[in-house]
């Protein structure tokens, strides 16, 4: 059984990788199995984790859980066309609650903490006695302050990007692009690790070529 599972996993892995050549029947089979299995798995997982694990087990301890359960039931009313409009209520609740929750998070992380972290002196006697230490701190603070300020200018939508304002916005987008460039390579490498993981599976677990 273990060997069968190993061969099946290798067969399906190669099926997915075969898409690199072109769309083909092998890929279609693998894709369908993958989607069907994962959809079923998630349905079962959500039922046991959420409905059973969070609601059913704790319903007597926390009556608030019934609110969620009722909202969930209202969602199912979509299946009854005549009263399907009621399903908009839980949806409204989710959208509204999400906006409210994120409002605080965004204010806190994207505004307050960002501004606090940008309040830096452009020069200080405490930066270091040596030229290197002092220059590095000055340049570092300058980049943070200028980058944040010009980035804000770029994302200011009420004024046309012209003149000095436009030049500051251009500096902002340059800094943003340099940041993206720096993160590009790093993220590519982390994506490569996914591919390496599958190749490692094929060569080690399946073919035993790497011990």
């Amino acid at each position: 059984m273990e060997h069968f599972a190993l061969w099946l996993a290798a067969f399906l892995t190669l099926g997915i990788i075969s898409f690199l050549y072109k769309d083909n029947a092998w890929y279609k089979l693998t894709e369908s199995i993958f989607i069907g299995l994962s959809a079923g798995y998630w349905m079962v997982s959500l039922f046991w984790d959420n409905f059973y694990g969070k609601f059913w087990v704790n319903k007597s301890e926390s009556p608030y859980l019934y609110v969620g359960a009722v909202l969930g039931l209202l969602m199912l009313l979509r299946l009854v066309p005549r009263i399907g409009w009621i399903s908009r209520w839980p949806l409204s609740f989710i959208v509204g609650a999400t906006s409210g929750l994120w409002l605080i998070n965004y204010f806190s992380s994207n505004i307050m903490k960002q501004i606090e972290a940008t309040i830096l002196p452009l020069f200080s006697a405490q930066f270091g006695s040596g030229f290197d230490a002092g220059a590095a701190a000055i340049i570092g603070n300058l980049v943070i302050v200028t980058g944040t300020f010009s980035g804000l200018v770029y994302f200011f939508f009420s004024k046309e990007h012209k003149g000095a304002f436009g030049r500051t916005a251009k500096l902002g987008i340059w800094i943003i692009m340099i940041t993206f460039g720096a993160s590009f390579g790093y993220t590519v490498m982390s994506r490569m690790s996914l591919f390496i993981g599958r190749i490692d599976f094929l060569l080690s677990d399946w073919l035993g070529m790497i011990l």
Partner: protein
Amino acid sequence: MKTIGLFRFLPALTSFSIAFFIIFSPALKAQAPDDSLSTTSPDALAVSIAPPTSLVVFDYKYDDGEALELTWVPSVDDLPVVGKVTGYELYRSDNGGEFYKITELIPGSNNFRDEDLSTGVNYVYYIVALSADARAASVKTEAIQTHREWLNFNLKYLFLIALIISASVIYFIETARRGKKLFVRKIAGLEAVDDAIGQATEMGRSILFIPGINDMDEVQTLAAITILGRVSRVVADYDTKIHMPVSRSLVMTAARETIKASYMAAGRPDAYSDDMVHYVTDEQFGYVAAVDAIMVREKPATIFLLGSFFAESLILAETGNSVGAIQIAGTARPAQLPFFIAACDFTLIGEELFAASAYLSGEPKQLGSLKGQDVGKALAMLVILIAVILATISEIRPLETVRYVLDFLIQVFTIKT
């Protein structure tokens, strides 16, 4: 119709209530002393090392009654390198029951936050200093209970700033409603939306809309669904085919509602079909496998990749690129933006994704919201400029007034946790 009217206000009402509740609820925590000094002695233990002293326990302020804060003076034998103390053990008794160990701490520790507690329970603590061959216990604390606070005053400045920006938003919405034209600068990616849909119509090919892989509790998904409203309206006008595979059931429901509303607004409700939006799977790469296959098989003329994306961003963008589709992408995830910039024709960077819906729709509510946010950004720029100048001046020449103003600004923007 009355129900629909109520429905329109529900998101705003709920959102405001939740935001208000969070601001004035004990989400974040800070500490303030609540005199509960220790008085009694625990059981005698070996005394070859000195015990920790001055063990104090106080309620953790502005929380949900779930935490207590403990501080103490470490043992005098707790010294770096030459010290005899190898660590500490903290003991607790609940409602007069047996003491039991709740945690072990490294040498030099002088505080601990005991979390996941309950209101209405009397807690008593003592701490034991450990050495290789001895234990020395502090005196016990007096019994203390946790307290729940309704208002979180740590967030008062955040509330004030949110109030200013919200007031700006309301002001601009009302201004727009009165018919005053509000200026919003051009956003390159959005200028291309109509052209891209028009091209798909001319080519007789479909439009693929991918709203990311997060659920409706992700603000980027909300932004994507809002843009979908505008896109589907143009699609309905042009009689183009739109296809939207999704990875979350709630997104499917919201997207169907949105597209249906657009078709009704365009006066073509008969052309709408639920099949335009369909669920695939919650599994990230299962979803990617399906979307890639759709791209290759249907060869859509235009692909929208708007919302929250993770490792799948480059796979989707590259596949879309390989079939020659015009791709308009947008996300607020910095790690994924480089891929979209590299592989897509137009990319909405971060905030532009949220500005997009206002720009496209031209609706007073959305435009007012965008302008209100710009007020927030202008304030932020002003504060940064002033504070940086003050910080630099105070480093060069320390002046009391400058330092005072600077400290106040830092205090305003510091979120205490």
